[in-house]
């Protein structure tokens, strides 16, 4: 420790003599490290944000729809969604065997329905769902409760409301739970208020499926079916046990639907897993571009250090001779010059951390990405910068260490 401090002190004194020359190399490293930090911030923040928003759909979700894009003309002429309550019950009963943890039907009501309370009116999106819906979609409750089996079985006139729908219909400052609203002229009891869900980022890139999560009004699918006068289900949403098996589970479920309808309809399945994969590919692409540009800065900085150290060794040949004469071993000379190189890059690294942190804060503000500090990244940035310095300093330092004392002393 004691020697290390003396070495650092001497290295600082030596650098101080040529600070302008060293500054340029420091700058290269600074830019490189700052770039590494900024890339990390974007990629971590983006990842976190996108995952948080994808989570509002349920990360383990699989959707099963009727496939209208079939080549089979006879199939295309058939009306209806191709999914009914029997399909739902059959899949629901075999959940364990299929690797499904939850499943919900999803029935949509026409948009022309008006919901009312007193003299307030709104066009809300009415969705008929099963008991598991709120679990699958990671819905949190601000108040009240979820649907239970008896709500479903006895077709109760109960609804859950998302915050935006509630704010349009319910008098501000009152608790919606326990209040009544009219939907298409029928009276419903509000039993739960859902928490707000953000899909702003996904919406901004057009990937929220065109649906605002905050204007939903949910009711038991059985209730909605009775109002609509049919037994059809628009689509099924499943939650699989194991994320990595989503595609396989989806295909099995799809085949079962095809089989149970004896080929009258075709179906398609979508998995959240495949969206996440695409997302990751895009984020990785952004990171690679950043890492490449950061590497170029670091390379330039490293070459700068090699140049600075090469010049320093040449200029200080006589000093090296003196040091060797008074008893410095090769290791001592090597350490001295590596220390100087390491110090240039460590200073660059520290400045890069500072600039990178500022850049990260600004970027997070500009993009609305959450700012997630990463201690690993800070350590990594410093390690990388010091490594660049040591690697670039190695050849000049070795040349210094191997000089013959008499020849070195003779130089001017």
């Amino acid at each position, binding site marked *: 420790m*004691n020697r290390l401090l003396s070495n650092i002190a001497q290295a600082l004194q030596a650098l*101080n003599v040529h600070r302008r020359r060293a500054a340029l190399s420091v700058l290269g490293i600074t830019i490189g490290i700052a770039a590494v930090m900024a890339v990390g911030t974007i990629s971590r923040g983006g990842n976190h944000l996108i995952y948080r928003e994808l989570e509002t759909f349920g990360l383990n979700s699989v959707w099963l729809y009727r496939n209208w894009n079939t080549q089979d003309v006879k199939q295309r002429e058939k009306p209806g969604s191709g999914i009914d309550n029997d399909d739902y019950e059959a899949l629901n009963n075999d959940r364990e065997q299929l690797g499904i943890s939850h499943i919900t039907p999803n029935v949509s009501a026409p948009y022309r329905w008006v919901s009312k309370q007193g003299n307030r009116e709104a066009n809300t999106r009415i969705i008929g769902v099963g008991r598991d819906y709120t679990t699958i979609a990671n819905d949190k409750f601000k108040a009240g409760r979820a649907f239970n089996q008896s709500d479903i079985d006895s077709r109760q006139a109960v609804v859950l409301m998302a915050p935006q729908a509630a704010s349009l219909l319910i008098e501000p400052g009152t608790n919606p739970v326990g209040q009544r609203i009219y939907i298409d002229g029928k009276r419903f009891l509000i039993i739960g208020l859902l928490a707000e869900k953000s899909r702003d980022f996904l919406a901004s890139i057009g990937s929220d499926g065109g649906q605002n999560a905050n204007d939903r009004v949910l009711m038991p699918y059985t209730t909605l079916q009775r109002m609509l006068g049919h037994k059809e289900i628009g689509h099924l949403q499943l939650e699989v046990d194991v994320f990595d098996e989503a595609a396989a589970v989806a295909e099995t479920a799809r085949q079962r639907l095809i089989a149970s309808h004896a080929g009258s309809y075709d179906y398609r399945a979508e998995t959240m897993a495949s969206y996440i994969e695409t997302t990751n590919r895009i984020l990785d692409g952004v990171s690679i571009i950043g890492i490449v540009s950061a590497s170029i800065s670091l390379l330039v900085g490293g070459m700068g250090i090699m140049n600075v150290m090469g010049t320093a060794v040449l200029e200080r040949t006589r000093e090296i001779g003196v040091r060797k*004469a*008074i*008893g410095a071993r*090769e*290791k*001592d000379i090597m350490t001295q010059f590596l220390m100087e190189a390491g110090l240039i890059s460590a200073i660059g690294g520290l400045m890069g951390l500072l600039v990178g942190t500022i850049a990260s804060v600004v970027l997070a503000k500009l993009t609305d990405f959450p700012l997630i500090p990463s201690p690993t990244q800070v350590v990594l940035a410093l390690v990388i910068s010091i490594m660049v310095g040591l690697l670039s300093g190695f050849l000049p330092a070795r040349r210094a260490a191997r000089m013959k004392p008499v020849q070195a002393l003779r130089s001017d």
Partner: protein
Amino acid sequence: MIAIKGLSKAYGSVDTSLLIVLKNIALNIDAGEFVAIMGPSGSGKSTLLNIIGALDTFDAGSYHFNRQSIPELDSDELAELRLNNIGFVFQSFNLISQLSARANVELPMLYTRIKRATRQAAADNQLTLLGLGERLEHKPSELSGGQQQRVAIARALANDPALIIADEPTGSLDTETGIEIMKLFQSLNQQGKTIVMVTHEEDVAAYASRIVRMRDGKIVKDES
């Protein structure tokens, strides 16, 4: 302490123009001697001094320092030997310009891994003994020639070596300062240091107890 036999050194190779700098040198120096090596330029006196100081190599013959055969040592072992046994004083002082007087004197002790506090105290003490107690923090450029040479002597003494090698120690100094430095060498010799010095000035050599004269790579006269 120093036993040199049949030592020769040449630059260049046989087929080109071989420049013989030292021919069949034999020289023994005992501990406690103060030897001046004299000779015109090109006589090989500096080369011999560098070899005695374990800085330079030679082609033939033998050199034992305290019974240790010098050619058998690798560069790090030679560094170690110089570090612990030999102090160097140069004509142009050769202080490290960005380091203070104290830090220059500390340098050899840094290489012997002496603790910082001990090192500093020893450096301060040595500089104070040489009359530089007020100049500890000064950089070499802020010191006179005589003061710089005294810092260099303090540095040479830092690890308490038995042998001091001095190459024209008064060459860059005015006469008066040169005399001060030579008196300092004389008192160091009286305290037991062996000193081997190269000079071409007779009145500087006069401070030594033994004068070795060289010409064309040979010792031509050796008188006490």
